[in-house]
């Protein structure tokens, strides 16, 4: 007796079964190499075809929002490193701009340019990991080795700038931790110059690779409408053909000065998302090189924000007024007006948003983190159904999520 299964996903293959089969339930994760962290997928399988997929998240929940309500604005900067820990510099910048919007504070051009350079470097670094890990997931080991060599060079540059490779905590409200060291911009520029040909070499391993094409073309198709309904952002949304890039649409930190293109996909499958990320790395290098070419001089922190940004160290140690100013900022926090702001930045994984409710003073009343990975994962129950288990691995890799950000 033939039972015909029609899966809810319209684009999915329809499987016709000879016999009514017994469904099997399979728990994938939270410790599974392809779930990139501590995501757990509770699946129901018919043979090898997924009929239901339910993501179980929260294994990395640390209560960041509760913690934020109990500390000053500057003290929370290190916690933003641990959201999307593959691009801490981009998180630092998004958080600092959100709080600066609350204080209606504009940072000088040099500070903006440094933030743009670091955020784009973070994007390259995050996409390189995404690319390498995705390639491993679908069976191509070599790309990972190449991409990690390049990431290592970026980490050296981060270390030179911030003192830390991984958890950079580089921004402060109203400025940065420190100015760029001498010769650093030239090194970044040199990195971009040597990286672009290497990137092409890396992509050549995948873009026309038969095995990779078989594993990604037509797999995990997300339609434009679905992508918007589920609140997808970043490369996952652009892969589905929606040209939403906040760097273009609502420019912040001086992004309007730079020339770059927004890559979008056509079908919204895993392959499109891969191509979008590949193109974004090229565009990021373009932005970095432009920012370095017209690197502005002048102060690197807001000099007119006495109650927000701590004065330079040599002044603190020699002048009474600056000493008090520093003491007040450290103990009471940067002083903010009462009110509500919501700011989203275009991060490697999507738009990272901060909703801050302030009642005045140095501590937020409520700080909500709108994590792109959280929204991007919410589409899994829809997109996994009708695919093979091995394709689920490919879909997870192409969605490129970070659980530190999803669970907060």
């Amino acid at each position, binding site marked *: 007796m033939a039972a015909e299964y029609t899966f809810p996903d319209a684009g999915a293959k329809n499987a016709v079964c000879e016999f009514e089969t017994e469904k099997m339930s399979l728990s994938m994760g939270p410790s599974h190499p392809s779930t990139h962290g501590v995501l757990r997928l509770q699946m129901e399988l018919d043979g090898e075809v997924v009929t239901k997929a339910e993501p179980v*998240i929260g294994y990395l929940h640390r209560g960041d929002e509760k913690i934020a309500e109990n*500390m000053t604005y500057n003290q929370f900067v290190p916690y933003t490193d641990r959201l999307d820990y593959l691009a801490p510099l981009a998180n630092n910048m998004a958080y600092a701009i959100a709080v600066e919007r609350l204080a209606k504070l504009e940072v000088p051009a040099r500070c903006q340019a440094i933030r743009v350079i670091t955020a784009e470097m973070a994007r390259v670094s995050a996409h390189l990991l995404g690319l390498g890990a995705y390639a491993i997931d679908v069976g191509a080991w070599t790309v990972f080795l190449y991409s990690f060599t390049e990431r290592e060079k970026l980490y050296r540059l981060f270390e030179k700038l911030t003192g830390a490779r991984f958890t950079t905590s580089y921004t402060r409200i109203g400025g940065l931790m420190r100015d760029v060291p001498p010769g650093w911009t030239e090194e970044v520029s040199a990195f971009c110059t040597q990286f672009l040909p290497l990137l092409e070499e890396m992509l050549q391993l995948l873009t026309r690779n038969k095995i990779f094409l078989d594993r990604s073309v037509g797999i995990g198709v997300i339609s434009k409408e679905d992508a918007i309904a589920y609140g*997808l952002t970043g490369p996952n949304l652009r892969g589905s053909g929606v040209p939403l890039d906040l760097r273009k*649409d609502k420019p912040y930190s001086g992004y309007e000065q730079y020339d770059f293109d927004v890559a979008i996909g056509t079908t919204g499958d895993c392959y499109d998302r891969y191509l979008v990320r590949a193109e974004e790395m090229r565009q990021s290098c373009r932005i970095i090189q432009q920012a370095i070419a017209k690197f502005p001089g002048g102060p690197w922190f807001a000099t007119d924000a006495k109650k927000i940004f701590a004065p330079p160290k040599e002044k603190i140690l020699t002048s009474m007024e600056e000493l008090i100013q520093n003491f007040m900022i*450290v103990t*009471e926090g940067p002083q903010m007006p009462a009110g509500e702001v919501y700011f989203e930045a275009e991060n490697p994984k999507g738009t990272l948003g901060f909703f801050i409710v302030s009642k005045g003073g140095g501590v937020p009343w409520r700080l909500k983190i*709108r994590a792109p990975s959280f*929204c991007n994962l919410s589409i899994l129950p829809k997109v996994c159904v009708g695919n093979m288990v091995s394709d689920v691995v490919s879909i997870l890799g192409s969605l490129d999520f970070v659980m530190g950000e999803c669970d907060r």
Partner: protein
Amino acid sequence: MTAAELKSQFPGVTERPSLDHPAVNVAAADIPALLQHLRDAAGFNLLADVTAVDWSEKVSPRFTVVYHLYSTSQHAYLRVAADCPDNAKPSVPTVSHLWAGANWHEREAYDMFGITFDGHPDLRRILMWDGYPYFPLRKEFPLAGIETELPDPEVVAETGVKARPAPMAGGPFVASSGEMNLGVAEPRAKDESWNERRPKPEGSE
């Protein structure tokens, strides 16, 4: 899109103070109709975020649900806020039928604040485990946490281990300048319901 423009169709809409994007207040019952209107007629097609704010247990109305909408055509944000009418059992109607993505956002608001979203198809905890008894982002919930049973009763029976509160020394610090005694001027955890000076309440481990 401002409160004045929405007023003709939704008389309950009022302007909400905001430092950046336009913002409106609306009655909780009107939320689905207003958001549907904004999505279909005003172009706010992307639901960026749903969250809630607890204004503390002394304030009424205590909970406010906040929606952030984004328009991919006009590149503009809109904030919509609704106070929950009941402080003890806060609830607002769901919008998960309008945006599938609202499903997880509403589950998170339920998990963290205990706000129920009427009509939600699957209102379960999402970040905390099923059966967790508290709502951690409510203001009366201490920063250190409260001792609770682990989710798996078999593990509890076998090991006797519970989910313990975080030690306050070593927690997130805020120096309170009011009682600054330079001898003990270490920055302290802001939540001082118990610490080295003040003993833990009876009954907690």
